């Protein structure tokens, strides 16, 4: 069994979560997988919009248009992620991140598949059936993450998208940011967390030890929040 870390932190808004994830990517111990489940600040009703995040290369105008179309202009300010992918509306999703060793440059679709396979195993261990979407990718990029399943997404037996995510590779480490819809499987967020934690432990043969982020990561996260994720310079850069 290898050592893993289950990082616990109090509620944060979207900018705070993005900053802490990047800080963990930059500062987590070498070779140690780090799992973190988000607690959202201001989360009252489970389906309330807690935040909007979007992919590192997406244009802000299209993102804002999508937010307006869905929420009539009343929504949290979208925050640009460090990872790829499309827009995610954090309204009742179970959000989590995973920092892992990615020492050799390799096909990201295989990494994506491995992470979703871990979640699949975790749900299976809890008696919940899921699968990995295997049909070809639709033409073009999907602007929104949950428009429909894409290859290697975790799906329900009925084919509804359950888990989608996005990746960043930096200095031999990977960051995965995932958004899971528990309602698509008829489970609650707590059970979904258990399944993901169980699946990661099984797949990585790791014992995840609960731990608060260290001072170095917290300090780095504060700088990133202030100087990147809360700024127009980052969020509106294209």
């Amino acid at each position, binding site marked *: 069994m290898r050592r893993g870390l289950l990082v616990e932190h109090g509620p944060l808004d979207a900018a705070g979560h993005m900053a802490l994830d990047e800080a963990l990517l930059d500062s987590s111990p070498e070779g140690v997988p780090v799992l973190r489940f988000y607690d959202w600040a201001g989360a009252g009703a489970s389906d309330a919009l807690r935040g909007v995040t979007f992919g590192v290369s997406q244009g802000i105008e299209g993102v804002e248009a999508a937010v307006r179309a869905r929420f009539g202009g009343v929504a949290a300010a979208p925050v640009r992620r460090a990872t*790829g992918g499309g827009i995610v509306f954090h309204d009742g999703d179970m959000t989590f991140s995973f920092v892992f060793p990615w020492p050799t440059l390799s096909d*990201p679709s295989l990494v994506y598949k491995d992470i979703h396979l871990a979640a699949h195993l975790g749900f299976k261990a809890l008696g919940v059936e899921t699968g990995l979407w295997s049909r070809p990718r639709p033409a073009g990029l999907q602007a929104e993450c949950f428009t429909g399943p894409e290859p290697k997404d975790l799906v329900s037996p009925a084919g509804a998208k359950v888990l989608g995510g996005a990746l960043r590779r930096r200095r031999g480490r990977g960051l995965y940011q995932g958004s899971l819809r528990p309602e698509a499987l008829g489970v609650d967020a707590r059970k979904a967390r258990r399944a993901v934690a169980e699946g990661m432990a099984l797949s990585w043969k790791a014992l995840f030890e609960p731990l608060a982020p260290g001072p170095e990561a917290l300090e780095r996260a504060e700088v990133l929040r202030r100087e990147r994720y809360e700024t127009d310079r980052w969020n509106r850069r294209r």
Partner: protein
Amino acid sequence: MPDPKDCRFAKTHEWVFLKDGVAVVGVSDHAQHEISDVVFVDVPKAGRKAAQGEAVAVVESVKAAFDIYAPVAGEVSEANPALAADPAIVNQSPMDKGWFFKLKDVDAAQVAGLMSFAEYEEFLKTAH
């Protein structure tokens, strides 16, 4: 198109072609193959100073973004304008039309300290 044998390579898979004191930088054929279908490239603006090994560019393939590093220190003198309109040229022509940026004020000794093509090919065998 520079011959790979005239280029030097970093362990992080960038290539450098030094000509008249200017270093042209891109990613290797191996790197574009692993990254797969490139949909976006964010290159540094002219005037940016970069330290050796500093992350200066980002490449995105579907759902995944990758840091790209300055293989040697220098000042960005030009970024490839074609990448914004057609990022797929990184896949189609990684050693030619898909170059990322040019660096001036580079240290030739730093360039020489990178791997030759033969060494890079050997590195790919051992690093996997």
